[in-house]
Every structure is written in C-alpha cells, then in structure tokens.
C-alpha cells in the first residue's frame, strides 16, 4: 500500500452538471454562498444523458480522484427521459469500475434540482470528504498523460 508520501493530498474532482437543473442548482448554491471545497470543478452539459461513460473514464485516466454526475430528478428531466438513460448507463459503468477495482465511492450520481442549492452544496461536501478518505486514485491514472 502506498501511503501518503505527498505533502498534502489535493483531489481533482470533476462534476458533470446538466444545464437545466443541477448547473442551476450549483448557481443557486453560489448565490446563496453555500460553500463546498474548491476541488470540485463543474463541466456543463445539456443533460445528464450527454455524459458519455467515456468522459468519466477519461477523467480517471487523466488523474481525477472522483467524478460526480448530477441531473434533474427522475421524472423532471427537461428532455423527459434523459436522466433515465443516464442512470442506466452509470449503473453499468459503475459495475465495470467496480470490476476494475476503482472504489465505489469515487463515482456518484445525484439528482439536484434548480431549487436545491443546499443539496448541491451538501452533496459536494460529502463527496469531497469521501474522496479525501479514499485518497489518491492510482488505479486508472495513465502516467503517460501526466504533465511533469
């Protein structure tokens, strides 16, 4: 086991947020000044169903320590059914990641509405805490991609 030989672990966390609910929820967390760690970086997508599992694998390959995907609540998708597709795809992806030995806690799917600034912040705090407890992701990172 590799134990913290770095001075301080600074996780890289990618959050995919759908434009209609979760990104707006993140904006609301901002305008409500509800803090969460700066390790989280948000990528805006039109809908959670735009998130290709490949994007998540790419993030891990490039050294991300955690990836979270947020969409509208089931039944509230702006595109009616997009989040259902996303949910199924992520279930499959997560079972594959499980098989690869990537800890379950490194990925997460959350439904956050445009009105749930508090939830967005709470979820991000929890998720970052989880990533801290899991430590650096060493499973999938492709060292060739690392910039010196």
């Amino acid at each position, binding site marked *: 086991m590799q134990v913290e030989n770095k001075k301080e672990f600074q996780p890289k966390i990618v959050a995919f947020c759908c*434009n209609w609910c979760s990104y*707006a929820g*993140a*904006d609301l967390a*901002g305008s409500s000044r509800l803090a969460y760690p700066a390790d989280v*970086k948000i990528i805006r*997508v039109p809908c959670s169903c735009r998130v290709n599992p490949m994007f998540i694998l790419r993030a891990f390959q*490039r*050294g991300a320590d955690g990836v979270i995907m947020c969409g509208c609540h089931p039944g509230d998708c702006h*595109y009616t059914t997009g989040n259902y597709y996303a949910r199924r795809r992520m279930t499959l992806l997560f079972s594959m990641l499980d098989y690869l030995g990537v800890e379950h806690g490194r990925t997460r799917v959350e439904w956050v509405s445009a009105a749930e600034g508090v939830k967005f912040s709470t979820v991000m705090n929890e998720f970052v805490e989880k990533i801290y407890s899991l430590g650096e992701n060493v499973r999938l990172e492709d060292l060739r991609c690392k910039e010196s």
Partner: protein
Amino acid sequence: MEVNQVQRIGVFVCHCGTNIAATVDIKRVLEAAAKEPGVVHAEDYQYMCSEAGQQKVREAIKEKQLTGVVVCSCSPRMHENTFRGAAQKAGLNPYMVEIANIREHVSWIHKNIEEGTEKAIILTRAAIAKVMLNAPLQAGQSKVVKRALVIGGGIAGIQTALDIADAGYEVDIVEKTPSIGGRMSQLDKTFPTLDCSACILTPKMVDAAAHEKITIYTYSEVEKVSGFVGDFQVDIRKKARSVDMSKCTGCGVCQEKCPSKKIPNEFNRELDNRAAIYTPFAQAIPNVPVIDRENCIKFKTGKCGVCSKVCLAGAVDYEQQDEIVSQNYGAIVVATGFDTIKLDKYEEYSYQSCPDVITSLELERIMNAAGPTKGHLERLSDGKAPKSMVFIQCVGSRCADERGKSYCSKICCMYTAKHAMLIRDKYPDVDVTVFYIDVRTPGKNFDEFYRRAVEEYGVHYIKGQVGKVAEHNGRLLVQGADLIDNRRILMETDMVVLATAIEPNPDVRKIATMLTASIDTNNFLTESHAKLRPVESPTAGIFLSGVCQGPKDIPETVAQAGAAAIKVVGLLAKDYLVTNPCVAKSDELYCNGCSACEKVCPYGAISYEDREVNDHGIREVRRVASVNSALCQGCGACTVACPSGAMDLQGFSNRQILAEVDAICR
C-alpha cells in the same frame, strides 16, 4: 497537446465589482490565461457585462482578429447571451463564445483567495480548451404555417379550436364520429352546478360550426402526419358519409324509414338501438346523417334503398367514396378524450350477466330525456322503478393488477355524488348508498357539493369496497364490509352503478405514433414538463388538451383547452421559428445504420435514409442516420447511444467535453 494554430483567443476577466475580485486574484488569472496556447489577448474590466465592457470585447475581436472569446464572469445562464450578442455585433459567430463561471462557482463560495484563484484559473483553462474546438454555428429558421389542427371534437377540442380561431387563426377539427360533441354530449347534468350538459355544450358546438375560421371534418380520421413544428403535413381521411352534406336538410325522415333498426346505439352506450342511417343525437353537428355501411341492407345485399327513395333532397349517395384531404399545419392539438374501461374482468360485480348493473356513463344516458328510457329511472331488466340503488366507486381505478388502472380516475367521486343527489332529488323514495374507498373532492365547491349529497339529500356513504354483487330473487345482493363500523353489509338493492375507471381513447396510441408524441404506460400523452409545461408534448408543435393528457373534469378540461390554444397562438403568431443550432449531427462516414440513436431520441428527430456517401473515394449507398435539426432539442442522448461515434452534439461535442476534462485534470 493539440493546438489549433489558426485560433486566436481573447480572454476577458470580469471583476464584477468586488464580487469576483475580492476572492480571486484577477491579475494571476490574466497571466495564466495569457500563457495558454492560442490566447492572443487577455484583459480585465470592472463590469464586463456593461456597455463599456462589451465595447472592450467588440474592439478586441476586431483589432486582434479574434476567432474565439472566453469571458470569465458570472454564470452562463446569466450573461452568455449578452456576450454572444456582443461577439455577433463585432462580426464573430456568437457560438464562438464560452463562459468560465468564476462567480457562482468560485468567488461566491471559496473565501480563500489562493484556492479561489487556482480554481478560477483551471476553469478559465477549461473554457479556453473548449473554445479552441468550437465551430461557428448558424441558428436556422423555419417557416410557420398559420393554421392549426385539432384532433378530437369533444369539449376539449371545441374549446381549443374556438380560442385559436378567436385569435384569428384558421383551425381544422377532425372528429372520428359523425358529430362533434364528444363525451360531454352524452352527459345529462354536470357538477358542481348541476346545469344541463347539452345546454352549455350545444351553444359551443354551434359557435364552432359557425365560426368562419373553423373547419370541421366529422366522420374523419387523421391518416398520416409528416413534417415538424411550424409545418406539419397531414392527410385526413373523410370517410364516405353516403349522404351529401350540401344537399341534406336534416329532416330525419331517412332515419325513421330505415328498415334496419336493430343496431346497438353507441351514443346511448348500446342500451337501445338505432337505424343504419343515423345522426348520433338530435343536436348533432353537422345535422347530417351517415350510413353505417356494415349494417346497411343496401350495402350488404344491394337491395333496399329506402332512404334514397324517401329523401326529398336527393342527398343519399351510395356511391360516395372516402376522400383524402391534405393540409399543412403549424401546430397540432391532441384532444382525443377517453372511454370507460371494459368490465369483463370484473364479473364479481355481475356487470355482464345482469342488466341492472350499469356503468355511470350508462346511468347518464338513462337519466337523460333523450336516452333509452326517455329519462325515466328504471331497471333495464324489467322496466320497474328502483326502490334502492347502490353506487360502487373505484371500479378499475387505483388497481395494482392488470385488471384495472393504477391511477385515480379523478372524476368519479364527484359524478357519483351528482348522481346520488339527482336521484334523491327527483325520486325521494329511492334509497341511495355509495360504497367508497376515499372520497376525493379537491376543487372549488366540490367538497361542499359532496357534503350536500350526504347532509341535505340523505345519501348513505359506506367506507369499504364491495366484494360481490349477485342477482338473487329478482334483486341484487350486494356483499360488502363497512370498514368504519367493522360489520358485514349484505344488502338487497335494485340497481348497482359502477364508477368505472376511465382510460384514454384507444385510438390515441396510433395518433401518438404518427405524431411521435410520447405516451405513458397508461396511454396518456406525456406532457413536456409535469409542472411547467403541462399542455405541451415534448415533441415541438404538438399540444395536449383534455383527458388525453390525464384524467380531468370539464372545468379543468376547458382551462387546459384554453392553455393549449394560447400556446398554439404563440407559435402561429411567429412567421419564422429560430432553431437552436446546438443539435445533434451524425457523421455519415462513421454511421453504421444500427438505429440505436433513433430509439433513444425522445423527439423522433432521427430518421434513417439511404444516402450515397463518399468514403475516401468509394461511393456507395448506405443506410445512415439523419437528424432533423428542427425537431432535435439537443439533449445528447443519441451521442452516447451511438456505438460508432458517428453522432455528436454541436456546441457540446465529444472533443470539446474531453478537452474540458483534460484541462481540469491537468
């Protein structure tokens, strides 16, 4: 690292007063941005969204010949359009602008300047990485045909058509049966005011028929739909009426003289019979009969022709053929209504075996002066007046099994209270008992209405579903349990009325398929958003009116019909529709024709066509996906479903998102 050398990116960092500048070191962001490959310009300003700020963006675009712009500011949901507009004014394609959200996602939540600045830099890099891969996009335009189609001529369709027509647009109503009027024309009285249904409906029917902007196609069905929002092409089949509408005077002699009079009368729920040439009811619009060819002696045997002989106007035309009317529409409203479910799986209530067990809709006809009993309340088995009646609620509603429907039919509690009250009012010696599970009366003056049935009219309400209804000794034995008194109920009664669940008109599935409008497991049409877009189908240009969208009563239906009409008017008022250019696009060279994308598309925007492609010099015809950009809403579901990577989303392409991921994880 791939860098497009021809890109010249400008980065504009906004202070937002102190909103950003207080916790983000703007200077360091500028420095970091300037070092990024491709960035040829970086500047900051107090308020980038102000006219002066926009001026800076416009000038830089012109002076530095920028090909892409990144604005580090507030959320794109706030000012993306502002900066796109600025870019456009300076001659840059508006879709070459990206926003790094360093206010809501950075400065407002991260109070540590070090952390905030570092994150702002990373988000800026991600935006730069994305914009490097942006492509100029053109918002398209499509024309709007200023005519609407309403499918279904019940109260929902009539009201929608009237409202659209009053706003000055042409509307066509297509109605399957020989007359408009729908379910409401079959009702006797309406809750909660107990006014006569025909008295309030017929004037609306007349208005619709007389309206110069409304064309009514009765005895007609939609046969084919193509096109998309703004310009649907629709084929309507006008079934042969066998009666010339222009000649018929509506005298009714043909119906009287027709020798084939034993045909179950649909309008009276088949409780009595009609002739083979008939108008469904006296106030029918148009008041022109049709010949039911399946049951007409002339059509079956070639002999007869009585109706033709007695028609003084010479309107009967046995040679008439179906006719196809082709018409273009800007918008389509579905108002196909409902029917009651079949009760063949509920024989514990003896509906099939005993004529004195009836549905509520049958009771409406029995209570109606034009109904099978001329409005006299009597048993259909022996014509005797009942001394006691039992109403059973929730028959087939709220069921978890396949016999019934999972939903609450919503109207039954109220119409049962109405029936109970009307009977007690007109026949005070008839004892009325209602078996209920819950009495649900949300609605203005609804609970008061139900309470009046109990308090003023002495209707007995018993909580508990009935277990069995059996005919015995000429009466009906109702077996139930009173859940409040916890005692067995075994009562004899004369008539049992079943509050039968309603379901969408079975034809709606066919229509929804033609319209590519989505439909739920219960065959109700799905609305675009359950709360915020309740009268719009997710398919652009398709609107919903009445029970086809979900169970509702007349007031709600009329309200929804008006809402659907205003949405249609809002669409028809435009000459052109601007289309969102961030839509899916398939690369024909990669497409393997598997249809995976077509299956996940909620809008029916993807179709397949055989197209000649030039694959590196080899020309061949392949079956490839084609996206209709007018229908595509840009969700991106297809891009992930595509196994070959042919499908991509403009503005959110795979490469763009991967570039953002890479930039964040650098």
